[in-house]
């Protein structure tokens, strides 16, 4: 069960961070970044497996691949922005974290624009 491994890594990293933070706070931040990245690398395998299954279902259901690709991109952007913003907030830099989240919202909006336009076009066709 990987969940045991992940929790073990998380706990050991937290304990080490507390130990290091008292002496060298800057190294504790770096340790936090490393622990976060390692935990996500462990989960990445599962995520890609789920993504492939979802893609197969979408192909079989005949859904246009553009929409699924956009959704995948949005999830990726959201995750990376959350990863960075959370680390900045842990290090005490709330302002930078907010800026990262704001930028992520803009990118997601930009990614979603084509779909919004497509939906509007379909609506306009319905209205006589």
């Amino acid at each position, binding site marked *: 069960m990987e969940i045991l491994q992940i929790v073990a890594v998380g706990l050991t*990293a937290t304990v*080490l961070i507390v130990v*290091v933070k008292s*002496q060298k706070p800057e*190294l504790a931040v770096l340790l936090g970044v*490393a622990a976060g990245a390692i935990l996500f*690398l462990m989960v990445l395998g599962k995520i890609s497996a789920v993504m492939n299954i979802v893609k197969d279902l979408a192909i079989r259901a005949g859904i246009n691949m553009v929409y699924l690709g956009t959704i995948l991109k949005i999830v990726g952007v959201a995750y990376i922005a959350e990863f960075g913003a959370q680390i900045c907030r842990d290090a005490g830099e709330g302002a930078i974290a907010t800026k990262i989240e704001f930028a992520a919202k803009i990118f997601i909006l930009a990614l979603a624009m084509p779909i919004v336009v497509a939906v509007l076009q379909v609506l306009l066709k319905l209205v006589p």
Partner: protein
Amino acid sequence: MDSNIDLIFKIAGVGMLVAVLHTILKHAGKEEQGQIVTLAGIAIVFIWVIQLLGNLFDQVRSVFKLF
């Protein structure tokens, strides 16, 4: 996968080593060398973390097709 977990212990080890060295050098009267040792430790750890992040971002890019 397991090589990554060692990274956490390596970073913690460097952190503690740097802290101890800094304290020793401080008592020996060489405060500047202590700060230089701290900077060296931070630089080494930063390089490891950057490599790890590069690896993470490559994998995320491939999984989420974020080209």
